[in-house]
């Protein structure tokens, strides 16, 4: 794959090390003299010194038709402009952009950047999922936090234990995607019986997640 890495110093270095040698063709562009020298030294690859937000620089670096463009600059608007140039002018297939302001994730996506990463947002997400782990609930997000998979272990005291799915009136906002009953995986239907120690994998939107968890964990009256 042809990969372009624009800007960044330590992050760029780490990414280069991971991609190097896996039959990828790397193009490194950096507009900071020191960072460019450092990257050239540590990666032993040629580094293109230039401003990735200028069309002529990207042209000189021959990024036309690359598979991935990764913008790691410090300023959000610089990353935005370089990604847009790569995508619109140089027909790069996929653009990945780092943003420092988490609010810009949504903005960049609406403006047409494929993939936007905010380290702050990721940090918050992992703290949140770590903290829900404490209450024996594991959460996984899909499609940029628009869908969540929640893992709930059934206890014998729960109201829904020893009941058929069709009888429990499961909230319409969620769906039981599968039940893990050691060592089998069950794709449930209405007649499936929920047993204690079952692991329910529930699909829902993040907004409805709380309601579903409290529904499942409701105790017997």
């Amino acid at each position, binding site marked *: 794959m042809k990969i372009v890495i624009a800007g960044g110093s330590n992050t760029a270095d780490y990414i280069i090390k991971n991609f190097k040698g896996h039959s990828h063709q790397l193009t490194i562009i950096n507009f900071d003299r020191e960072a460019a020298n450092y990257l050239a030294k540590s990666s032993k690859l040629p580094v293109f010194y230039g401003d990735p937000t200028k069309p002529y620089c990207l042209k000189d670096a021959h990024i036309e038709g690359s598979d991935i463009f990764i913008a790691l600059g410090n300023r959000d608007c610089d990353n935005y402009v370089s990604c847009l140039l790569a995508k619109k002018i140089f027909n790069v297939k996929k653009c990945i952009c780092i943003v420092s302001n988490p*609010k810009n994730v949504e903005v960049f996506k609406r403006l047409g950047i494929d993939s936007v990463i905010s380290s702050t947002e990721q940090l918050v997400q992992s703290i949140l999922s770590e903290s829900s782990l404490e209450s024996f609930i594991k959460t996984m997000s899909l499609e940029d936090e628009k869908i969540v998979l929640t893992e709930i272990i059934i206890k014998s005291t729960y109201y829904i234990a020893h009941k058929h799915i069709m009888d429990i009136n499961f909230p319409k906002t969620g769906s039981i995607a599968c039940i893990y009953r050691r060592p089998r995986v069950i794709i449930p239907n209405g007649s499936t019986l929920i047993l204690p120690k079952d692991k329910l994998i529930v699909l829902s939107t993040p907004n409805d997640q709380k309601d579903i968890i409290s529904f499942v964990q409701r105790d017997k009256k």
Partner: protein
Amino acid sequence: MKKTSILKNKTLVIGCGSLGATIANKCSQEGKNIMVVDTDAKSFERLSDRFSGYTFVGDVTDLSTLEEAYITTAKEIIITTGDDNTNLFVAHIARVIYNVPQIYVRLSDPDSEILLKGMDIKSIFPLELSFDKFNLMRGGRK
């Protein structure tokens, strides 16, 4: 800084450099509703004593600043910060997210124009203007 209030049919000027301040002063003279935004409060010193619009300090690459400056009700936005990438970014936000009726942007690098294609954003290039003026003064053909 003056207290802001909801303004309708407002002209929003982003960046209070010499161009931004000149436009702001002129609009204010004409009695238009005007709001000027800049990251540095000192730059508002460029505004004339008779300037009667609003000023707002904030980072224009942050959506909340633009919203606090009432971009949602603006009828026109003039983007004149000293950085082309900031200008392009704000212009695209103004078009795609807020759909401001009239968008003007000042860009120093004429190459940047390709990113404005098909977006109905009007661009001003000081370099081209100076070159045209020079040609005109020399009596040459444009």
